[in-house]
């Protein structure tokens, strides 16, 4: 029973990682950049939900929609101002700019919302299900998060495989110049990717803070790094990989806490990550792209 409890705890944490990792992996897979500001867009999304829902008393759905719209716009704005000028520069330059954007969003939020923590009201009111005569409990947030993850994953995979913009994304991720030669608007495609990634960040923000109810300007940064780890774990660029990576990371983290040492849980999680990557150098579902010589 203990094991199952810990497993479920892991699942619920992992589902939050997974939903963030989906956004990471999407942007990485197509724009080939690590958007370190992703976690901070999540934070902004969560504040927006909080302000509209708890602050102005709007219905949950409305406030999430508002948050999605605002985050999408924010994502596109960031992309245009800070990333687009560096399209032809090395990926590393964009990575650094993303870090600058991350600082900017954090400090902006600090000025606007202040440093005091806010206790976030869960957007999910459903209590969840109880199994084994009350011994096991899966919270509503967990179930909804996992379902949302699955829906997003399937939708993204379908989108990328079957739509024109999705096709364009695949081409852009392979070779931008060649994509241009196919008549694909590379800038537009990358902007669209950011728009989708940022929209997902809004959803992730609402669900993250529903599971972990404290909101500060720095709420997004650590889960952001963890989700990045999860995305790599699952094979960065791979959409189902992000889901699996997120869930596994959450489960390993909780089992390590439960059975080995809660002090060294971070170290254990990272050690497992390293071992997995040594065995499978491109992550669990990552494509092995061996160069043809």
């Amino acid at each position, binding site marked *: 029973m203990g094991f199952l409890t810990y497993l479920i705890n892991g699942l619920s944490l992992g589902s939050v990682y997974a939903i963030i990792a989906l956004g990471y992996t999407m942007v990485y897979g197509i724009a080939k950049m690590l958007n370190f500001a992703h976690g901070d867009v999540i934070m902004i999304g969560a504040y927006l939900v909080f302000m509209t829902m708890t602050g102005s008393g709007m219905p949950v759905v409305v406030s999430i929609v508002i948050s999605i719209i605002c985050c999408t716009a924010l994502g596109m704005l960031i992309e245009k101002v800070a990333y687009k000028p560096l399209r032809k520069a090395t990926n590393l330059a964009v990575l650094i700019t993303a870090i600058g954007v991350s600082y900017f969003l954090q400090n902006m939020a600090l000025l606007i919302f202040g440093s005091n923590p806010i206790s976030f009201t869960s957007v999910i009111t459903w209590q969840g299900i109880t199994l084994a005569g009350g011994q096991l409990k899966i919270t509503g947030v967990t179930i909804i998060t996992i379902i949302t993850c699955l829906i997003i994953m399937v939708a993204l995979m379908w989108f990328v495989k079957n739509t024109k913009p999705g096709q364009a994304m695949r081409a852009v991720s392979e070779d931008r110049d060649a994509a241009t030669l196919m008549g694909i608007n590379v800038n537009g495609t990358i902007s669209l990717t950011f728009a989708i990634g940022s929209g997902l960040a809004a959803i992730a923000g609402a669900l993250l803070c529903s599971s*972990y109810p404290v909101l500060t300007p720095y709420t997004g940064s650590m889960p952001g790094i963890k989700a990045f780890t999860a995305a790599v774990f699952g094979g960065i660029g791979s959409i189902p990989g992000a889901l699996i990576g997120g869930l596994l990371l959450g489960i390993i983290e909780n089992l390590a806490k439960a059975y080995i040492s809660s002090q060294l849980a971070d170290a254990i999680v990272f050690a497992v990550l390293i071992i997995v990557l040594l065995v499978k150098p491109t992550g669990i579902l990552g494509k092995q792209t061996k160069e043809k010589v």
Partner: protein
Amino acid sequence: GNSGNSTGSDNVDTSGELVWKIGGIGPVTGGAAQYGQGVENAIQLAVDEINAEGGINGYQIAFNFQDDEADAQKAVNAYNTLKDWGMQILEGTVTSGSCAAVSAETNNDRIFQLTPSASSTSVTEGNDNTFQICFSDPNQGTVSADYIADNNLGTKIGVIYDSSDPYSSGVYQNFALEAQAKGLEIVATESFTQDNKTDFTTQLNKCKSAGADLLFLPFYYQEGSVVLTQADQIGYDPVMFGVDGFDGLLGVENFDVSLAEGVYLLTPFAADATDDATKSFVSSYEEKFGGTPNQFAADAYDGVYILKEAIEAAGLTPDASNEEICDALIAQIQQVNYNGLTGENMTWNDAGEVSKAPKAVIIKDGGYVSAE
């Protein structure tokens, strides 16, 4: 939102008149910003009050607060900035790690230092010029264990602490020592880190399955609010015992205070206490900065008045050298007996530690009630 933005140069007296230059250091950006901002605001409040009343020994106070992002090196940089400004007395720094680094500097430069909230013994060890307003870690750990044992609050104790935080692990260590001495049984010791503070359910579950009927939680209220929420979610309801870091819990915006019902914490200060001093402090703070002041703020506020009292008793004027001020205050603060927001009859020994009785309070009906 809140923002203590009237720092530094605003207050420097440009007319060339002599002023007291008091500096402050703490995190106002970064993950610990809430603690630093509380301190900055509260000092500002006290300084404004004192200046309005004519200052200390007839001299106005200029106050300059510098950000250290809770980073020791940045704190030293902040300290040097203040030194260039001409700081005579330092009220800071907020966090222990930074404070230990800065104390070494102030000790070397002979500048008197009074920290509102850095509770580690490493802050005062070997630095005769540094004094604490808050309880020290050993003090809190010991008092907590004693209190739990004496009042039979629990027999099987679970501990969750922040192993990446000097304050939290410091209190835990001393608690564990004293618990051993008092024959308390610690059945589970769990921890988390700053990088891993999203989810406490596993730690809570472990304590639960170890049969802990009391949880000792020596960390800050931000994580505290999460622990309480998640304990409620898994249906675990032991006696919760926090230390002074838990103060502020009820001030978390939108927090469901019913979750905090029955939580014990050690605090010298309660924002909703009914005495006049607290009431006036809280209302002016809220008016000026918005948000409820926490214990950090209260300690910092007291600090300014303690300095005032000591300076007045020593009969100092701002034209004295830093060293003179420092020496005089070291001697004088040990004579002070101060009644403030955070304690009655506060006195200091030559190790720099405060003696004030930590008050255990219990949260009842969304407010603090003395646990005695």
